[in-house]
């Protein structure tokens, strides 16, 4: 045990008592927060360049005759003209803040009423887009009013829906989204009129009802019934996601240096010197212990900072105290599991490049929870969420998410996942120790996955 502690102490000091550790501590929240702050910074400087748009409206002939049959008059505005009016309304009302400053680009629509559009005309307009003369052009035809068309979105298919949007890489542009909405609204109105319904009445009837989200009602310490708290987006999505990302970052911040440390010992032949002084299993255990201590230090620093911020922002009540012990235990087991696997990779590799190759198959297993976390937040008691919670590399991340979202995780699941995690960690440490014992002496040859399997089985 003495040797294990000596190695653990060295590993801990080598990781913590460095400038890079402090820089990493400071950078991690910056990087994580950057994801949230950057879009805001970008929207703070909106694109204000006017978008010139050509709308070819070939829908008029049949629509007009249709309208005549319904209303018996010729007073209906062409669809393209309505879009022009909607764009003007947007330019004057929707993209100006309270102080009168523009918050978005103006849309200037050049309306062309045509019988039909030829390919030559489409090419001409495409060239105008290429030369930046216009931003896009839109094509409307008679099929917009054909109710037999099974379209959900009028612009998804030019040949099928009667509306098409042409732009240079504009599939996801705001302009296209605006036309999606505007054309839908205008056409819907026409269709309602065609059906003899008052669009205003229908709009009233279609007004959505917002369902307010609450948590569960529970008894307080005095035996009274405590009202359920409102579940806002912060506690429903961002808090679980933030905690999961924090856990993920803590695991990787600890496991990655373990790999690098082993690789350094192997490349600099320190491993050769250590072999005469310590058994490989003691060596690896000491390094794992050092990693765990390092992650606890990181956690303590971040937790302390988070508490200060929560107190300052008056979020004290939002702190999920019940989850804190689980978080710590899952984190410790996670660090042990991840670090042991990373150490095994470091011991088997001869260079950083080797380590990257060996990490690839491992990453698929370790990153699995990152692909499903949103499904787990949406339905924390689904079969997928419960099943994956018993998969040790995913347990710490998904269980924290589930515990944050749902207060009714059965006890058997909490204990069961913990036992699965313990078992999984034990298996990983055992396998990693066997790879470590052989790999640390192996020089010049990177083992294949099959060889690694043989090392694990035969020892």
């Amino acid at each position, binding site marked *: 045990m*003495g*040797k294990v502690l*000596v*190695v653990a102490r*060295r590993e801990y000091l*080598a990781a913590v008592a*460095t400038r890079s550790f402090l820089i990493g501590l400071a950078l991690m929240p910056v990087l994580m927060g950057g994801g949230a702050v950057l879009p805001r910074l970008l929207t703070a400087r909106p694109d204000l360049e006017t978008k010139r748009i050509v709308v070819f409206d070939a829908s008029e002939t049949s629509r007009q005759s249709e309208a005549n049959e319904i209303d018996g008059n010729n007073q209906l505005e062409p669809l393209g003209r309505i879009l022009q009016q909607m764009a003007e309304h947007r330019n004057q009302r929707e993209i100006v803040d309270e102080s009168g400053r523009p918050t978005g680009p103006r849309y200037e629509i050049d309306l062309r009423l045509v019988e039909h559009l030829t390919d030559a005309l489409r090419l001409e307009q495409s060239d105008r887009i290429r030369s930046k003369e216009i931003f896009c052009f839109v094509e409307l035809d008679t099929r917009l009013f054909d109710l037999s068309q099974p379209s959900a979105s009028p612009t998804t298919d030019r040949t099928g829906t009667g509306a098409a949007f042409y732009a240079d890489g504009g599939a996801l542009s705001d302009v296209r989204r605006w036309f999606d909405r505007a054309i839908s609204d205008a056409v819907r109105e026409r269709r309602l009129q065609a059906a003899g319904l008052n669009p205003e009445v229908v709009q009233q009837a279609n007004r959505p009802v917002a369902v307010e989200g609450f948590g569960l009602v529970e008894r307080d310490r005095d035996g009274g019934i405590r009202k359920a708290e409102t579940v806002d987006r912060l506690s429903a999505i961002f808090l679980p996601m933030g905690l999961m990302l924090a856990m993920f970052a803590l695991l990787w911040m600890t496991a990655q240096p373990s790999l690098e440390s082993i690789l*350094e*010992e192997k490349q*600099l*032949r*320190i491993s*050769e*010197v*250590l*072999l*005469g*002084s*310590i*058994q*490989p299993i*003691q060596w690896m255990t000491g390094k794992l212990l050092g990693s765990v201590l390092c992650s606890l230090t990181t956690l303590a620093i971040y937790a302390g900072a988070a508490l200060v911020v929560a107190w300052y922002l008056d979020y004290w009540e939002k702190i999920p105290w019940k989850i804190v012990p689980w978080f710590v235990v899952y984190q410790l087991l996670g660090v042990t599991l991840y670090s042991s696997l990373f150490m095994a990779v470091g011991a088997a590799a001869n260079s950083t490049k080797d380590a990257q190759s060996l990490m690839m198959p491992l990453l698929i297993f370790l990153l699995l929870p990152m692909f499903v976390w949103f499904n787990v937040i949406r339905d924390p008691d689904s079969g997928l969420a419960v099943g994956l919670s018993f998969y040790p590399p995913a347990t710490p991340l998904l269980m924290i998410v589930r515990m944050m979202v749902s207060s009714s995780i059965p006890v058997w699941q909490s204990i069961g996942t913990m036992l699965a995690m313990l078992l999984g960690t034990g298996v990983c440490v055992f396998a990693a120790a066997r790879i470590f014992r052989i790999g640390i*002496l192996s020089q010049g040859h990177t083992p294949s996955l099959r060889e690694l399997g043989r090392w694990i089985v035969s020892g």
Partner: protein
Amino acid sequence: MNVIELHDVCRSFGARLAVDRLDLTIAAGRIHGFIGPNGSGKTTTIRMILRVFAPDRGQVIVFGKEHGEVADDRIGYLPEERGLYKKMRVHDVIKFFADLKGSRHSQADIDDWLRRFSLADRANHRVESLSKGMAQKVQFIAAVIARPELLILDEPFSGLDPVNRELFKDAILDLKRGGMTVLFSTHDMSVAEQMCDSICMIHRGRKVLDGPLDEVRRQYGEDTIRVRTGLTNSELLRLDGVMRINDLGRMRELRMRQGADVQSILRNLVQAGPLEHFELGHPTLHDIFLRIAGDTCAQNECAQNEGGVDG
């Protein structure tokens, strides 16, 4: 008492036989040289003594035990390929190895060794700031700091300048005088010749020579003549009784045929031209090494004509 005993030890890696039926005995309190060319099985043998590898066959007995643990605290080990944590300070890295071995009197010993190796003023410097020679000194101190009973040094003199070589040599001799058993592998025959009480030569995994140094040299007899003369190598080779020449530059070593008459060779040399130096002696360890390695090579690879010039 024997500190190490190897009996009929074999070890292979895949199809390659690294150590083949090796017997070796190392007595306590002596310096034992382990000699052999690269790839001859020295490091594999050392790793079996350290219990890093188990033998495929045979017995490896260390301190009287056949089944010991890896990293015995009574053994100090300086590997051939060695490194240190670059970011650690000199004092801390030595203390780390002392602590790993459970040394109780490390602080005083660290100070003594640092002073002895003129590193006292570098104690708080990072390892990465040291020259190669200084780093080698730190590595040596790390191996001996816990006062092991058996010290295993794998090529301890490689890359050392003459001053540091003397420093290491004196340190090893002092450790021996303090009762430590030392096993070191080396290519440097002159060092082995100066320091070792006994030697073992291993070639292609098999022991080809073993025993106290004097006995080994006696075994090869007084068959070497060192001369300084104006004759060419071809003229010397034509002398009756001379089998091979080792050209050392100013001096040349003539190896005599078995049963050749020294007096006759001396007479012929004097008659052939001016003779400045004539000395009859045992072959050096280097010469013995070359003879064995060369003989093995000749048997296996390059059938050479009898007679020739080395050097």
